[in-house]
């Protein structure tokens, strides 16, 4: 509904206030006067008139008349389908692409998507991202003003632009998911469940664009990660490695759904990066015990991912998979190559990986050196504690 009014008026801020006004009137009048035969159309029409009044009072109607005034003033209400409560798919799709328009700052895209598509309050969004509510409210206001001032078109992008724009939308959704996934320990209960919201957005994308296999890949990836969320940390906030996680506590229903979506996404002619990452996650989820993991398959998937999206971090993950499939020496050779290339010098996981492989080869002094290097670079507390434990272990040998 909001989407429709935005479409008519092109201005988020005005539309949002107008719809709220219209609902307020509806709540007051409908119980007395009975429900109108087309409640949705009534709200849209009322909202439009209220918006026009507001704009007129603010002296802004003239300013937008050139582009939209004629639409706003016209007495023709757009044809709306069945007044059931399911939103018009087309409208929501337009809203998604507008929220995630590249002209908007990335943070603004995230805030706008959560506000308009998930219906989170500004307070909830602020808490989720650990910013002051006033800051977030300002961010939303500026984003809406920018959409109006820049005349960002309220539309689904043209076919030739769609793949790139959809990628941008998926990046926003995945960003939200990762933000939620990173919340661990004490603050997790306070922060709104961003993983759930991201998954909801992912489902929306799959529902609205069923022909896009990458949307399935993204949803699959999120479902598979989310299924393990409860087992990633101990109650005191320490890290639990994948191989030590209690698989009985993984959400099996979510894993099944994730695997089905992964299969569909990978059946496409050229599986994209989300589909490939989902396939890797699916391999882990498939194994009843850590020792059942098909590491060779995972290594092949990382290789394909590296071809699609070359990145030293992907190569590092691939080295880990290789070590699991063929032994630590094979993995260590790869890690040494990455070290020589010099691109991950400041990345603590490069050193942690090297340390781990050296430890497994019984080269304890060298492992200790590498653990120390990793400790110089590590950021998060749970990871720091883990590395210190390992350093202690190898130093004692």
């Amino acid at each position, binding site marked *: 509904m909001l989407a429709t009014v935005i479409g008519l008026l092109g201005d988020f801020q005005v539309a949002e206030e107008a719809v709220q006004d219209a609902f307020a009137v509806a709540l007051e009048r409908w119980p007395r006067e009975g429900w109108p035969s087309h409640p949705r159309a009534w709200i849209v029409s009322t909202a439009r008139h209220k918006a026009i009044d507001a704009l007129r009072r603010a002296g802004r109607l003239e300013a937008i008349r050139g582009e939209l005034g004629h639409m706003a003033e016209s007495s023709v209400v757009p044809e709306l389908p069945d007044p059931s409560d399911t939103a018009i798919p087309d409208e929501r799709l337009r809203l998604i692409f507008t929220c995630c328009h590249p*002209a908007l700052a990335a943070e603004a895209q995230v805030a706008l998507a959560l506000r308009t598509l998930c219906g989170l309050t500004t307070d909830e969004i602020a808490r989720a991202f650990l910013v002051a509510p006033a800051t977030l409210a300002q961010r939303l206001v500026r984003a809406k003003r920018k959409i109006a001032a820049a005349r960002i078109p309220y539309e689904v992008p043209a076919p030739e632009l769609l793949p790139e724009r959809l990628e941008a939308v998926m990046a926003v959704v995945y960003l939200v998911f990762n933000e939620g996934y990173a919340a661990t320990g004490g603050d997790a209960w306070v922060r709104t469940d961003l993983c759930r919201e991201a998954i909801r957005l992912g489902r929306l994308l799959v529902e609205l664009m069923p022909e896009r296999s990458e949307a399935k890949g993204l949803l699959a990836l999120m479902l598979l990660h989310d299924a393990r969320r409860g087992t990633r940390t101990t109650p005191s906030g320490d890290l639990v490695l994948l191989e030590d996680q209690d698989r009985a506590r993984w959400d099996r229903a979510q894993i099944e759904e994730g695997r089905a979506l992964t299969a569909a996404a990978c059946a496409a002619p050229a599986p994209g990066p989300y589909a490939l990452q989902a396939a890797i996650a699916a391999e882990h989820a498939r194994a009843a015990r850590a020792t059942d993991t098909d590491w060779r398959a995972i290594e092949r998937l990382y290789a394909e991912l590296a071809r699609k999206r070359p990145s030293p971090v992907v190569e590092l993950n691939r080295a880990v998979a290789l070590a699991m499939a063929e032994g630590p020496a094979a993995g260590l050779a790869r890690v040494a190559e990455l070290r020589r290339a010099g691109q991950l010098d400041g*990345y603590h996981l490069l050193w942690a990986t090297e340390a781990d492989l050296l430890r497994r080869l019984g080269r304890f002094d060298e492992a200790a050196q590498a653990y120390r290097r990793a400790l110089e670079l590590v950021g998060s507390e749970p990871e720091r504690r883990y590395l210190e434990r390992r350093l202690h272990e190898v130093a004692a040998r």
Partner: protein
Amino acid sequence: MEFMFLIVDRKGARTGEPVTMAEMGRYAGELAQQGRIRGGAPLHPEAVGARIEVRDGRTIVTDGPFAESREVIAGSFIVEARDRAEAIEIAKRCPHARAGIVEVRALPDRDVAKPGFTTAARFEKQPTQFMFLLRAEPGESDPDGSKYREMIAYDVTLKREGSYVESSQLARDSAARVEAADGKPVVSDGPFAETKEVAAGYYVVEAADRARAVGIATRCPHARWGSIEVREVMKIGPT
């Protein structure tokens, strides 16, 4: 709120003892420890920079140094502060305030596409970056918003091409300058009589070399109604 501290030198005149990179590094380190640093970096000297204007369809590229300017921007910090007053207090502690000018500008709409313009070390090799300093002509305006829309379209193009790192307008009404007088920091409010060229905004872009950076700046609509100074960002931290 985010603020940019512009590190400004008056050409020819120097008050107080010169400031070393080490001192500025320590100041940056303090800000980082307080969790206040959001970006910023020193710039390669003006002498190796360029200024671009496009007038009547003609592109005019002038190599630095720029004789007609009385001030030069040597670098910047991007700092988080509660409000303008706090930002000014933080700026007063900048070592450069005793030797030159620290200009404090609010960043109303900073748009960061890639994290990368920062004084803190990151783990991947730092790509070559250039800062564009956009200067406005006095009296320039945008009554129908068409210039604004052109700039937005340019941003979108750069983002698609992958060169866009970040940009923001530099708020003008609330500008402040901190410089030393008799060994004490003095704050003055804008507009600043000494310079007619107001820095109106900035971009940070990735480009392989100066020539490519100049090419990107030439396409910026602002070049048609103002000027764009192109300066390479100095790499610090792991390279």
